[in-house]
């Protein structure tokens, strides 16, 4: 049962996962990936670089907002947080995924 999830499933779930992580507070790419790895017990294998286009797309859709923070080392880091429409989108996602979950449970019950 330790197989990695299929690419399609990973891609489809990236939006609700990113939105859910950001719903817990603002965060940056690297830490978001670590959170995903931890929460999924390593079963969700994301090609790390692919997170960033996802974040960019969500930003374009105004579901998340981003700002750059300059650290002590002088290096910039991009932080993301959920926007109001992002919270609403997350609610919709939750309903949809619950519907899928409920259907499968009923079928497999």
């Amino acid at each position, binding site marked *: 049962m330790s197989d990695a999830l299929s690419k399609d499933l990973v891609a489809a779930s990236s939006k609700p996962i990113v939105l859910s992580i950001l719903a817990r507070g603002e965060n940056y790419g*690297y830490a978001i990936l670590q959170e995903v790895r931890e929460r999924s017990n390593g079963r969700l294998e994301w090609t790390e*670089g692919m997170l960033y*286009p996802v974040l960019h797309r969500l930003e374009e859709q105004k579901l998340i907002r981003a700002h750059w923070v300059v650290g002590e080392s002088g290096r*910039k880091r991009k932080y993301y947080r959920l926007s109001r429409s992002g919270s609403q989108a997350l609610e919709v996602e939750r309903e949809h995924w619950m519907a899928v979950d409920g259907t499968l449970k009923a079928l497999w019950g």
Partner: protein
Amino acid sequence: MSDIETLIEGWRCTLLAREGMRVEHADELEDHLRLEIARLQGGALSEQETFLVAAHRLGNADAIAAEFEHADPRSAWRRRWIWMLSGYLGISVALRADLIAARYAELAPSRQGWGDLLFPVVFILGLTALVAFAWWTGYARRAANGTSRFSASPRSRQFVLAWAILGGIVLSFAPLLGQWMRQLSWIPDGMGVVSSRSVFLFLMQLLFWLAPTIALAILVWRDRAKQGVRAAVLAAGI
């Protein structure tokens, strides 16, 4: 520069060479790469190996760039417009140079007046606009690669872009301007452009130059409202 810095710099240039990759995307990916390298350091791996592992985990540059492009199709169109505009401006200047050469061959050099001045002035303006445009796109590219020797402020870069666009517009209107000045007897007969040809040229130039310019201006303006001047200027240039 240490070995690892050289490797990171090279990796960053490879990323930025991809279409659709903006400086801010590369900044963010570089931050990730550095964090991963830092995490791997202290283990059994050599410095170079930590870089290789971290870069491999981030994934293929082409695939990442393609995803970014997919996530923001407007930026691809912005870039196409820019290249279309610069190509068109080059052709305009070449056409105008040809016209001037023809006029000077026809006319005695002793004739002085407004008309004699108009075409060289338009030509020079067009040429400077072309140079400005080339500098501006070149600057954006160098800045993206981190190899720029200049540190132009966003304001001065905007000025250069504005100058390039203005030059293009003046070039577009030049045939009509010539026609109008000839009607006012400012230009001696034979100096103005043949009317049907000038109207055709004007319409073609309007179509190819002004329409995309206005569309580009709207896009840049919308981006600027959202992302800040620097991002919009760089995004349009690379």
